[in-house]
């Protein structure tokens, strides 16, 4: 599929040294089953890693995310944001683990996974996990599985926006934090096809 230069390979192991910053971006478009398996080791003090991913499913796609973020050195920072929409009979699974080693003090690690389920047949399983062995850390994770907000939809429809358009807008705004620069149109088209 035509991924831009920002799209990282589905499988990867990364070691981030002191002062380095790793940015990973993933886009999974409708019709595509993917198994994304990455592990990142933050091995040098002050290393950073940021992962963003977006998925859209409308048929029988199987999308898997397996992400292990290992904080091995002090003062490292990591963020993960994975947003996606599951329609059709899609089967989506997110396994994310943050491990903070005993000496990795002053760690900041954040992980978020938000999912919207559009149809009866779609299935989402999310397992965001934290394993923390140091005390001076700021770690959080959040995961949601839900649907498009009915109040928002009503708001837009009461102002004359047709339902289909309103839903598209909602989905685009939900995805906007993870849409890579320069691919807005492509993703908008994919959202409209759902």
């Amino acid at each position, binding site marked *: 599929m035509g991924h831009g230069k920002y799209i990282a390979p589905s499988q990867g192991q990364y070691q981030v040294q002191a002062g380095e910053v790793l940015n990973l971006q993933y886009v999974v478009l409708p019709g595509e089953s993917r198994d994304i398996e990455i592990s990142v080791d933050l091995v040098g003090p002050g290393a950073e890693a940021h992962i963003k991913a977006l998925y859209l499913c409308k048929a029988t796609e199987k999308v898997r995310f397996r992400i292990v973020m290992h904080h091995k050195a002090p003062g490292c920072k990591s963020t993960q944001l994975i947003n996606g929409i599951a329609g059709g009979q899609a089967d989506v699974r997110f396994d994310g683990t943050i491990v903070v080693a005993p000496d990795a003090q002053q760690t900041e690690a954040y992980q978020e996974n938000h999912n919207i389920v559009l149809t*009866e047949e779609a299935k989402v399983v999310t397992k965001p996990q934290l394993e923390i*062995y140091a005390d001076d850390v700021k770690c959080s994770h*959040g995961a949601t*599985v*839900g*649907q498009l907000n009915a109040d928002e939809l009503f708001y837009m429809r009461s102002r004359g926006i047709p339902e289909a358009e309103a839903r598209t807008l909602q989905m685009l705004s939900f995805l906007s934090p993870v849409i890579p620069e320069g691919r807005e149109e492509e993703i908008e088209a994919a959202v409209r096809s759902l």
Partner: protein
Amino acid sequence: MSEDQKIIQAFTSGEYKEGFVTDVEQEFIPKGLNEEIVRMISARKEEPEWLLEFRLDALRKWQSMPMPDWAHLDMPEIDFQDIIYFAAPKKDKDRPKEIDPKLAETFDKLGIPLKERDVLAGVVAVDAVFDSVSVTTTFRKTLAEKGIIFCSFSEAVKEHPDLVRKYLATVVPASDNYFAALNSAVFSDGSFCYIPKGVRCPMELSSYFRINARGTGQFERTLIVADEDSYVSYMEGCTAPMRDEQQLHAAVVEIIVEKGADVKYSTVQNWYPGDAEGKGGILNLVTKRGICKGDGSHLSWTQVETGSAITWKYPSTILKGDYSSSEFYSVAVTNNHQQADTGTKMIHLGRGTKSRIVSKGISAGVSQNSYRGLVRMAKGAQNARNFSQCDSLLIGSRCGAHTFPDIQSQNPTATVEHEATTSKISEDQLFYCNQRGIGPEEAVGLIVNGYAREVLSRLPMEFAVEAQKLLQVSLEGSVG
């Protein structure tokens, strides 16, 4: 030693004051676990044939199961043949109706009133279990007037066999897991409670479990049935003597909540946690599950876990009835070498079901504290809703706090939210308190209590005081 470390040490070296042993004559059956032992337990309790069959079936299932190893625990090898599965205080032949004064004294020391006149009128009815048998159940008459059955499990088998047979193992089948199968084979005593239709239980019901004998395990079974539109609040407490050896506690709790009924189940778990070097302590391997069977039913779990060397416990609810709801409030404290892997499962089957999970973990010393939870939205769970919050507080740099949630959604109208944070008591918070003349230790107590407040406030009044004290003892004065 720096000031911080001193405070942490003072805070984490609180004594276990329930660690005494009662010197009472006891009878045991031989060590080991096989068909003969199971038959022996069953014969001793004069059980009907069907219950013996149930036990033997469970034993066969248990023998074919592997020991689970998925929990985030460093579990010692348990030699199941080296455990005495039944220990009971010998009854004084001359006064068979009376409670042995030594036992009464034991429970008195623990603050558990066995004589009804000792209690403020109509506050708490207690079923006290000492090793493998229930020694007494208070307020039975008062409760019987309302049609409420509250007695030991053994008595229930004799007096209400139909009810027991109808509900036993309907929520936790014998083959459910390794420890549930073990319990089903060798369970000794526990509490049975039945609230009839439309009855609001006038007092708190309570079970108190005490392990006393050496080399034994406690395997109690609790069955609570709340019939339509009834209400009951149930409390459970437990302690054990201080010993170098580890003792096994594998209980099963089953709760059936019928249409419109409301059950509140609270636990303050204070088993002996082992010494500061991690020697001894109770292995607390418990299966607790309730089913919101009827429409609009409600089940609430509240637990304060401060004891046990190892805790393996996931009180769960199956939300089967439409618009039924459930909550899980937990504070789990681990210190020294304690390990806890605890959490909940919320299985949403019915329409419009709601659940809420609030879990607060506090780890100190070199302990490991994990939250493990499952929220499942089945296909039929239209408009179901869950909210989970799991916070961890770390005290000291050598402990661990872990979160393992599992969220599964198969319904587009269901909403699941999960959030977790991990933090330590910040310098700022401490500084703020110190600045206002609150000493470091007191400040930590304040912060920990504030952190756990949301859960503590859910406990029945009788328990809330005890739980707050326990938190202080287990965690006095910690500075990160």
